[in-house]
């Protein structure tokens, strides 16, 4: 257990020391809020769907957590290349402890980043219901663990960063855009409807909207169940992949 703690702590220290990347990671959510949020706001209102910032903010927070977590998970590739992974592999701890430590570290970092973006959405005019904030944090936590584990599972299979654009454009981006983060997922064309319902992050976005007191599509229990079970599956796949890594 102490091994998981020190791996988690390492991740956190590395995060806090990279001040520029903390600020840098806020850029994209701010652009989304300003350009898309205020840009599409009038159209959204005219369509009778209400305040767009109110709708978009949870989606932007999930985006931040999703991107940050996956990237932290993918950092395992760097640990491979810079040899640090070897140091942990010859230590008297199990591979699953290493994976769990990394995953929890990445998730924590992502949640901090997500909370920062949450504060920015408040400035932009987001007015959530705050009584159920713990529930919102629970949804964020699940989204963070899921994406961090996903990043780690992918990183276990890769030896260098060359596959990175492929992962970003064909996995991370679709997971975000097809999650209902920027548009409502009711009354969609059939193919899109199926894609959004199969995407576990749709349940994260929807759950977070529910927790903030906004309009939601799925039952929060369904969202919790989907997130928990997909997280467990991805973590198991990650452990399996990690056990096979040879350095």
């Amino acid at each position, binding site marked *: 257990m*102490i*091994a998981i*703690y*020190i791996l988690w702590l*390492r991740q956190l*220290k*590395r995060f806090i*020391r*990279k001040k520029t990347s903390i600020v840098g990671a806020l850029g994209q959510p701010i652009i989304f809020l300003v350009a898309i949020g205020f840009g599409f706001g009038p159209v959204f209102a005219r369509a009778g769907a209400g305040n767009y910032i109110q709708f978009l903010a949870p989606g932007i927070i999930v985006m931040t957590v999703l991107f940050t977590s996956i990237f932290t998970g993918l950092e395992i590739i760097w640990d*491979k*290349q*810079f*040899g*640090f992974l*070897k*140091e*942990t*592999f*010859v*230590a*008297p*701890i199990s591979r699953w402890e290493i994976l769990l430590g990394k995953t929890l570290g990445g998730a924590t970092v992502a949640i901090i980043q997500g909370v920062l973006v949450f504060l920015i959405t408040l400035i932009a005019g987001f007015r959530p219901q705050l009584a159920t904030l713990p529930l919102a944090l629970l949804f964020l936590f699940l989204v963070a663990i899921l994406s961090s584990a996903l990043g780690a599972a992918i990183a276990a299979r890769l*030896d*260098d960063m060359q596959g990175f654009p492929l992962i970003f454009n064909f996995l991370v981006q679709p997971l975000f855009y097809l999650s209902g983060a920027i548009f409502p997922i009711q009354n969609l064309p059939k193919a899109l409807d199926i894609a959004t319902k199969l995407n576990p992050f749709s349940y994260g976005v929807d759950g977070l909207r529910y927790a903030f007191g906004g309009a939601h599509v799925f039952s929060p229990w369904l969202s919790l169940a989907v997130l928990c079970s997909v997280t467990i599956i991805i973590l198991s796949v990650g452990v399996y992949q990690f056990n096979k890594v*040879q*350095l």
Partner: protein
Amino acid sequence: MDIIEIKNLTKKFGDFTAVDDISFNVKRGEIFAFLGPNGAGKTTTIKMLTTLLKPTAGNILLDGHQVTDNPHQTRQSFGIVFQDPSLDNELTAYENMQFHAILYGLKKDVYQKRIVDLLNLVELYDRKDSFVKNFSGGMKRRLEIARGLLHNPKVLFLDEPTIGLDPQTRNHIWAYIKNLNKQENVTIFFTTHHMEEVERMAEKIAIIDHGKILIMGTIQEIISAAKTKTLEEAFISLTGKNIREEAGNAGQNQMRINNKLMR
């Protein structure tokens, strides 16, 4: 009982045999040099001895532990300095040491003192709070050696520990290592391409090529068996004059090359 007992050890990658049925022992407290040209199977053997690779066949006992059956006990018994650097550049020297201590389950009051002692030994104590990314190659190596010793291992593996270092630093590093071997009775198992380092340090030598042990013995025994004047001549006469291509896993070799370029 010998500290390392290797019996019929074999490692195959697909149809390529990197290590081919080797057997040898290393005595407790010995300084043992494991030599061979590039791609001879040195690093593959070390990876099997240090639980990073599973042997295809054969048996290894390290400090009495079956390496494949009891990886965790084995890992407590050895320390290793890898061929490529393996420090976290974003952490300080002290934090790298602390990370290692906690991974190996050392208690705080134990490791605090031990870290101070070891950092003093490798003359890095005054830099303990500097980030490793600001260290020179020699300082990183010294830190890695100190880190490898933190959990009081019985064996210290050093895979080309002086690669890319200037003669001054190399001298220093070998002086520390000799000192450690004497003071803490740590068995030293090292590889290098510098024959003068072997002549200075090694009590026993094994030469491996094409995955097989060609010869084993003291420096004198090897020189007389090869009927040459120096160890370097003996090495070349035994392993041939051809330059070796590194075989094995292509992706891994690319990573090794990248790592060397990044140092």
